[in-house]
């Protein structure tokens, strides 16, 4: 156990420079973008004095490096500051929004995995057969549909034409679980369909590799049925690369699914970030991106740590 903790510790230590670079990049990047929160708040009729006053009260009149150090100092103490737009503290705001994005992403990717595994296995097993061609064509097609496009179409069909599901809004699970589900079905399905394509192809490719190997033949030579061969011998070994892929996908998506959240008007992290960028809400942008980077790093760590579960040969690298 000792070595494991040391490993985790070392990995986390190495994330610090990454996070620092993200912090520096974020800070200076958002400030290089023209536009100014004070101006956005005051609108087209603002006078120069008004602007200067507001900027001063927001602390934006300080030199940027100084602002950075000040902010970094606060971050180290766990204070991410307050939103310029509405004064809400950034951390709770972010965590609140993250819950929404994370629920959708985790459920969607989870479902996608559940679909992709059998689909990929069957396609590989029936390689070049009709079933395989159908699965490959379908997954390629799903992969190549822009997510907002798919989202809008589903929204039109199920929300408007059929009227089965609500079109916009969000209800937290804590309030009305059933209603909450009806609100997140469409975004989850959209995201799931998009990810199913990628994961199925990945699963199929690695299962084909595995099916070529001797031990699969050996398993058959023992008299195992095809179902058992696939489930016991092919699946666990073919899953490792798909797992890496899932890690990459999760790491990327947990940072927010801005476009989907806009289409479905979900109060998620992605939209918070995009809105904050457009509103030049510096503390929120900085907080969100730092948070996203941390999530990415942690997801990667978890993925690496889980790897030996699927492939005992892999230990630390």
């Amino acid at each position, binding site marked *: *156990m000792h*070595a*494991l903790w040391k*490993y985790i510790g070392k990995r986390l230590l190495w994330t610090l420079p990454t996070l620092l670079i993200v912090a520096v990049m974020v800070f200076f990047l958002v400030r290089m973008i023209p536009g100014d929160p004070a101006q956005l708040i005051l609108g087209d009729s603002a006078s120069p004095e008004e602007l200067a006053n507001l900027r001063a009260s927001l602390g934006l009149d300080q030199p940027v490096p100084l602002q950075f150090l000040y902010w970094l100092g606060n971050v180290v103490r766990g204070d991410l500051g307050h939103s310029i737009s509405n004064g809400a503290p950034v951390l709770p705001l972010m965590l609140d929004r993250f819950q929404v994005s994370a629920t959708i992403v985790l459920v969607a990717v989870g479902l996608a995995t559940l679909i992709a595994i059998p689909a990929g296995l069957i396609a590989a097993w029936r390689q070049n057969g009709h079933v395989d061609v159908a699965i490959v064509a379908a997954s390629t097609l799903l992969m190549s549909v822009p997510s907002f496009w798919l989202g809008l179409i589903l929204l039109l069909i199920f929300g408007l034409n059929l009227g089965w599901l609500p079109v916009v809004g969000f209800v937290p699970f804590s309030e009305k679980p059933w209603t909450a589900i009806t609100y997140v079905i469409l975004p989850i399905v959209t995201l799931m369909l998009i990810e199913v394509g990628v994961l199925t192809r990945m699963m199929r490719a690695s299962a084909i590799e595995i099916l070529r*190997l*001797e*031990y699969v*033949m*050996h*398993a*058959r*030579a*023992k*008299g*195992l*049925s095809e179902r058992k061969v696939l489930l*016991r*011998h092919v699946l*666990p*070994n073919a899953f490792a690369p798909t797992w890496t892929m899932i890690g990459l996908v999760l790491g990327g998506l947990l940072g927010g699914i801005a476009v989907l959240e806009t289409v479905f008007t979900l109060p998620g992290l992605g939209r918070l970030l995009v809105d904050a960028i457009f509103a030049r809400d510096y503390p929120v942008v900085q907080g969100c991106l730092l948070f996203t980077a941390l999530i990415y790093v942690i997801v990667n760590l978890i993925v690496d740590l889980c790897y*030996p579960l*699927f*492939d*005992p*040969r892999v*230990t*630390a690298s």
Partner: protein
Amino acid sequence: MNAITSSPLLAVRNLRVTTSNGFPILHDVSFDVEAGSIVALVGESGSGKTVAARASMRLLPKAIRPTSGEILFQGRDVLKMSDGEIRKVRGAEIGMVFQEPMVSLNPAMTIGAQLAEGLRLHEKLTVEEALARATEMLERVKIPNPQACLAAYPHQFSGGMRQRIMLASVMLLRPKLLIADEPTTALDTLTQREVMEIMVDLTRTFGTAVLLITHNLGLVAQYAKKVIVLERGKLIETGPVEDVLHRPQEQYTRTLIDALPKRDYSRKPLAAAPPLIAARNVEVTFSGAGNMFSAAEKKLAVRGVSLGVQPGEVVAVVGGSGSGKTTLGRAMLGLLPLSSGDILFRDRSMATADKAFARDYRLQCQLVFQDPYSSLDPRQKISEIIGEPLAHGPKLNRAEKAERVAEIINEVGLTGLGDRFPHALSGGQRQRVAIARAVIRNPAFVVADEPVSALDMTIQKQVLDLFRRLQENHGFACLFISHDLGAVSRVADRIVVMEQGLIVEQGTVGEVLDHPQHPYTQALLKATPTLGIAA
């Protein structure tokens, strides 16, 4: 042979197998395997041995299928059984040990799970009972600490151990027929013998018949009763071992037998001379690959070895797998950092050599890799590969280079193959490419790391002959690494025996082979199977 049963256990009748695009792999092959006997299937690489074996279990790859003939197992045609029936036969009635032990076990399942799986499929047993049976069988195949073994994963075992585990897994079900496809190719002679002994012992206990596939005629002579010879998908000859091996009827069989390496007594002893290259108390340490759960361990692969090689001398290094042969060879080429000791080239210490001398040393000393395929860049043509070292020799213009390359290609017998890519060559041809590349610049010293152990007998012979010829023509000194004493006896002047990183014995070929002093050498020699007809 066997008059007790009227019908044999397995009877292959006029079997014809083709690829899906009609290319024939087996032509009208017929043979029998009688209950309780060991039958050998021999033939050079690609002759269809594996295909014939797999067909008997109906486990052919999709691209290949039987087109006519029948395979009768206990009188029933395997090819006509339903899927459910064939699954009952597989494992329970016919067991198979595959060619590659490294990849025949599922890396993601514990040994215990894999052993119990087959048992519980064919017999009604609880998990505990199955595991108990598995433990017992692991004991029989001499796996130390079988209890712990059940919970371990395949990658935690060496090749020889995995082969034994495979054997255990197959024998656990007490099949009536065991098909063993080259079960010992990747193993050193000692381990090879151990595995064979266990197999014979098991079959004897359970009365199992064995179809043994191999290219090692020594093994056949020692263990089989009957032998079947295949050549390019055709049955050439079949009969009792004594008849076929000692009085072969067919030319092809004779070629196979002749290819067995024989001691060459024609080599003249070399006059004593100062060594070209010498190792002085060389030690090599590997910081073993630690893993997430345990810290890295240091591993001493070569522990204080001193060895000199005279100009023009061939020194063979023999020893079991993992004894440090490759490590020593690479250390002498300066490819591995030494943890202590020194290498002297032309009496100059490499530890203190200047840059120019180091470069000269690098160019004068070459290596023929253990695995020819992976040492050839798959994207280069043969002529490019062979010609590449010329970029660093004395300046040659394009035409001179091409001429030199053509010359050496002829010399190694690859005429006309210069435009091919490595994957389009046979194993023996690839090995020759690797040798040509090593000698094109007329090096002073060549390390040849097991240049023939992956090849079948006929090709092995060709390569050994080539090697000797080149060595005589070019006169380079050589460190010839091998675990095969037969091969060594053909090319070497001197033999060095290594065990666990130490030289345990050395001397001329005659001294070592005829009067081995060290027990390890004696064991090695004893384990080498022969036809029993050697001079």
